[in-house]
C-alpha cells in the first residue's frame, strides 16, 4: 500500500513539483483509518484499471489533467470573482456529454478522494455516520453518482435487503460506477435528475458535489424533498469558492449553503466543514479557499 501511495507521490513530484508540495502537506492528516481505506481502494481500483487495459500511470495523468483544469479555472475565478460557466447547457456540452473530458475528470476525481485531505475527511464522515441510519433505510438513492465511490461504501454499510438506485446524467459516470461496483443490486439510471421520477420515495438520498452543478440549487433541493420519504434523510456535500470546469453555482460561504437548506424545508442533523488547504481562517478568507461542506439533513417538523 505505502508502495502505491509513494509511487503516486513520486510520479506527481516528477511531473508537477509545485503541486506535489501541496499534496505532501496533506499526509499529516492521514491516520490509520486512512491507510486501511486507501489500501482497499487502490487494490480494487488498480484491478479495475487493468480490466480496461489501463494502468495507475493513466489514472495519475487523469488526475494531473484535472489539476491543470482546476488551476486555470482558479486563476479566472480570482480575476473575475465568478465561475467561467453559468448555464447547465454550457457545462453539459463542455463536460458531461464529452466522454474524453468526463473520462479523465472522473478518474481524476476518484484519485482525489484519497489524495486530498478534505475529500478523504468527507468520505470518512460519511462512512462513520451512515451506519446510524442503517435500520431506517429500506431504499437508497444516489444522485450524481459519478465515479461510484460513495455508493460502493453505502453498499457495504447498508442492509442486504435495501434497494439501491443511482442516477447520473453522464454516460461516462454510469459506466465507471458500474465497473467500480459491479453489483446487480443497483438500478442505474442515465438521466437528468430533474427528469427522474418513477413515483418511488426514498428513505435515504445522497447528493455528493452536485448542488454547485445546477443553475438553481434551491429548485434541486425541492425536487429532492419530493423524492424523500417523510422521515427520510438527505446527505449532501457541496463546496464554496471551488472553480471547476463544470461548476456553475457559486456559494460564497457556508452560511449561504445552510440558508438554502432551510429554505428548502430541511433541518440539519449534523454537519461538517473542511478547508481544502491547510491555511489559517484569515488566509482562507483572503485567498477565497474552498471549503467542502457536508451535512445529514431531514425534513423540518412544521411547528405551529
Amino acid at each position, binding site marked *: 500500500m505505502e508502495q502505491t501511495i509513494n509511487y503516486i507521490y513520486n510520479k506527481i513530484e516528477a511531473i*508537477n*513539483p509545485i503541486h506535489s508540495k*501541496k499534496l505532501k502537506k496533506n499526509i499529516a492528516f492521514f491516520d490509520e483509518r486512512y491507510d486501511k481505506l486507501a489500501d482497499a481502494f487502490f487494490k480494487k481500483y488498480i484491478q479495475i484499471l487493468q480490466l480496461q487495459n489501463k494502468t495507475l500511470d493513466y489514472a495519475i495523468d487523469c488526475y494531473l489533467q484535472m*489539476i491543470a483544469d482546476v488551476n486555470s479555472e*482558479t*486563476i479566472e475565478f*480570482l480575476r473575475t470573482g465568478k465561475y467561467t460557466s453559468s448555464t447547465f447547457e454550457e457545462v453539459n456540452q463542455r463536460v458531461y456529454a464529452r466522454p474524453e473530458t468526463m473520462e479523465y475528470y472522473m478518474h481524476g476525481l476518484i484519485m482525489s478522494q484519497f489524495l486530498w485531505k478534505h475529500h478523504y475527511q468527507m468520505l470518512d464522515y460519511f462512512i462513520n455516520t451512515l451506519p446510524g441510519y442503517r435500520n431506517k433505510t429500506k431504499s437508497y438513492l444516489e444522485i450524481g453518482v459519478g465515479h461510484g465511490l460513495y455508493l460502493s461504501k453505502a453498499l457495504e454499510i447498508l442492509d442486504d435487503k435495501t434497494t439501491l438506485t443511482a442516477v447520473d446524467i453522464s454516460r461516462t459516470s454510469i459506466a465507471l460506477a458500474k465497473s467500480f461496483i459491479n453489483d446487480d443490486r443497483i438500478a442505474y439510471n442515465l438521466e437528468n435528475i430533474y427528469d427522474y421520477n418513477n413515483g418511488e420515495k426514498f428513505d435515504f438520498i445522497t447528493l455528493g458535489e452536485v448542488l454547485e452543478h445546477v443553475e438553481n440549487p434551491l429548485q434541486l433541493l425541492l425536487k429532492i424533498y419530493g423524492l424523500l420519504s417523510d422521515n427520510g434523510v438527505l446527505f449532501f456535500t457541496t463546496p464554496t469558492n471551488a472553480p471547476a470546469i463544470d461548476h456553475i453555482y457559486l456559494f460564497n460561504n457556508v452560511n449561504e449553503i445552510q440558508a438554502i437548506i432551510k429554505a428548502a424545508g430541511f433541518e440539519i442533523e449534523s454537519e461538517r466543514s473542511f478547508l481544502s488547504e491547510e491555511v489559517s481562517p484569515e*488566509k482562507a478568507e483572503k485567498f477565497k479557499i474552498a471549503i467542502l461542506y457536508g451535512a445529514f439533513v431531514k425534513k423540518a417538523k412544521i411547528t405551529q
Partner: protein
Amino acid sequence: MNRSEILKTVNEVFIDILDDESLVLTEETSANDVEDWDSLNHIQIVVAVEKQFKIRFTSQEILSWKTVGEMISSISSKTL
C-alpha cells in the same frame, strides 16, 4: 520599469502572499528554493502580480516559468 524595479515589486507580492518578510528573491530563484511556493500560492502570486502591474498572463506563460527571472521577462514584455 526596468528589471530590477520589477523584481522589487514582485518580491513585495511574494512577501505578502507567502507571509514571509525575510524573503529575498533573485532572478534565479525557483520554486525549489522557496518552501512555501506551492500550487496554491503560485496561483495567488500570479493573480496578485497581474493586478499589481495591470496585465494579463496567458496560460502558456504561467506554466512556462521556471524562475522568477522568467516571470519578470513576461511582465517586462507587457509593461513596455
